[in-house]
């Protein structure tokens, strides 16, 4: 464990700092965090798709073929791009937590 301990206001167990390294190599720590984060993102997408498919099917408003052939317009494309940036930030923000020296 390479992080500095922080003393508490009144005794007890010194608490770990912001970015403890558990796996001896901070790159490995970041990799594990990214894998878990990716799993969260995959679940978010799957949950949304299941919701949408259930609604669409129940309402009889859309065929699967329409989804496959969908082309976003300019505004939609820009919104997708913003979402993509948020997705990448969520997963890969861990890279900023790898300290330059250990």
């Amino acid at each position, binding site marked *: 464990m390479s992080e500095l301990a922080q003393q*508490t206001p*009144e*005794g*007890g167990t010194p608490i770990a700092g912001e970015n403890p390294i558990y796996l*001896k190599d901070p790159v490995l720590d970041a990799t594990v*965090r990214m894998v*878990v984060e990716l799993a*969260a993102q995959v*679940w978010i997408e799957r*949950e949304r798709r299941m919701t949408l498919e259930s609604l669409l099917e129940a309402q009889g408003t859309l065929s699967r073929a329409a989804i496959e052939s969908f082309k976003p317009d300019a505004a939609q494309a820009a919104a997708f791009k913003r979402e993509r940036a948020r997705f990448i930030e969520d997963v890969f923000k861990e890279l900023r937590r790898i300290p330059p020296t250990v």
Partner: protein
Amino acid sequence: MSAVPETLPALAERADAAYLDFVEGFREYILGKGADFEDRLNEALIAEQARRGQPWDDVEQIREYVHSLPLGRLRDRLSRTQQEMKWFALRRSFESQRAELLAELERYDARGPGRLELDPNFVHPPYVNVHFHLQPGGYYKDALSGYLYHYGTKVFFRGDNDHDELHAKLVARVPAPADGRVERILDLACSIGQSSTAFHRRFPSAEVTGIDYSAPMLRVAHRRAVMLGDKVTFAQRLIENTGYADGQFDITFAFIVFHELPLRIIHETVREAARVTRRGGIFAIYDFTGTRDKSPYQRYHRWFDARHNGEPYSQDFCDCDMNAILAAHGFEVAATPLGQRSGGAGYMTNWFATRV
């Protein structure tokens, strides 16, 4: 389901709820049989103990051994990660609707039934300046602390307390005083008031008061109680120095607060509870079990939580003799083991003490 008002704050997006739903499931997986860390690491610890031919002396030895195992280090990484993910998602979701959430609290502050008593001159003692459970801003520095805590504990209890089911169950187990008189109840460190409202439902004619040092928590507690139609007073006061009159309460209650207190404050709080609880009244405590007689893994887990989950005082609490402290301050304790999972990897127990 009956139409129980949803008191959990709404998240900004469906994706936020799905993210936290994942964290809840992942938490269940790594704490339970999914990843099966507990049993496998405990077996390794017991085997190593046999190999060394002597029991584990202290938690430092256990820690060293767990950290020598890749599985132990990965378990720590994942435990920390799920907690960080929870707060990351909650903070982002609430931050994007901060103004609306604060306006919502303001709408409820002056409404009844029940009332909110905040102290504009309240001074926070230094020992509370900790980011308990890694909650950003701790329990009182962010005006949204109560909302963060509410959703955070929903994830912590892994679906067992979405509508205060656990609080209702634990409050139901608290014995009434032998003479049956229950007119006033005090909920110490009530946070968002889930036990307080459960007490109001169990004893509708009693006056229930919940106290806490955190104004943001108390505001959420009050909003919840108003939404639920439960008449409870929430007041900003210190549990170790409540300011209430001697012998004023028939039941004094403390749910998982003692492990968040330095030993000095544990003693002061028990002394204060003895002062404000009438003779024959009950002081009911739910909190973590001691770890001395627990498995090596449980002892390790307590150390990990203390150091890596913002619970700096919890080890001292688990090592102290609560029975002796209660007895020293005039309580008679009935031992009634609980064996309830705390929501984390640890276990809860209870002390039901009578003021003599």
